């Protein structure tokens, strides 16, 4: 399954708007490509992403095949206090990848 990379600040001021950059290594097979014999290659994409901070929802997204290979997603949110940013990607085959980043409010 895919490997996720996340760039997030380690520390932030309370109420600061931080930007998180995420990238997953994934082929995002659209289901429209054909193999050498002219058969469609079955669709296999990451269809959902969600991020929560301290249990509260930040963003949840659904992805369609029009999202590029190695899906990149950048988002921003306001950090209320020290907590864990938990990100989760869901594949078409049901498998998930999770990544947690702790942001400390000084």
């Amino acid at each position, binding site marked *: 399954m895919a490997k996720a990379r996340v760039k997030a600040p380690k520390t932030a001021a309370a109420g600061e708007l931080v930007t998180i950059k995420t990238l997953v290594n994934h082929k995002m097979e659209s289901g429209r490509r054909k193999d050498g014999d002219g058969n469609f290659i079955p669709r296999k994409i990451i269809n959902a992403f969600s991020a929560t*901070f301290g249990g509260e929802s930040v963003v949840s997204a659904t992805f369609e095949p029009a*999202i590029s290979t190695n899906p990149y997603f950048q988002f*921003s949110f306001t950090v209320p206090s020290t907590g864990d940013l938990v990100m989760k990607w869901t594949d078409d085959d049901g498998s998930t990848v999770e990544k947690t980043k702790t942001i400390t409010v000084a």
Partner: protein
Amino acid sequence: MSLTRRNALALGSAAFVVTLVPLHAFAASEKTMAVIKAFSGGAAVIDGGIDLTTPEIAENGNTVPVQFSAPGAKRVMILADGNPTPGVGTFNFGALGDASGSIRIRLAGTQDVVAIAEMADGSYVQVAKTVKVTIGGCGG
């Protein structure tokens, strides 16, 4: 009103402006309209209110960077009007989330990229940007 030379010119230029205006309005395909309708629940969608950044010309349709920012939005949907299926992604923002994001998308060819947002007050806004694509990104 007698048709003097001055009047004729004024009429002519007014007619010219009228014919030009619809060209600038965004005309979505039927598929896209259906998706927008499903998203908004049939509510009226007003133009403007979203910051949508796309490249004017994308050399490679496989990865086209798209950035959106819709301050105060609860949900944002991105559509590619000229793709085999118009959907690209839908984003639901929680209480902490800032209604902005940046993604990379596939475009089959030169077309309009559309962003539709549901604002906190329940109204819907949309913005469309044309992207010229040199090489399409949908295989085939």
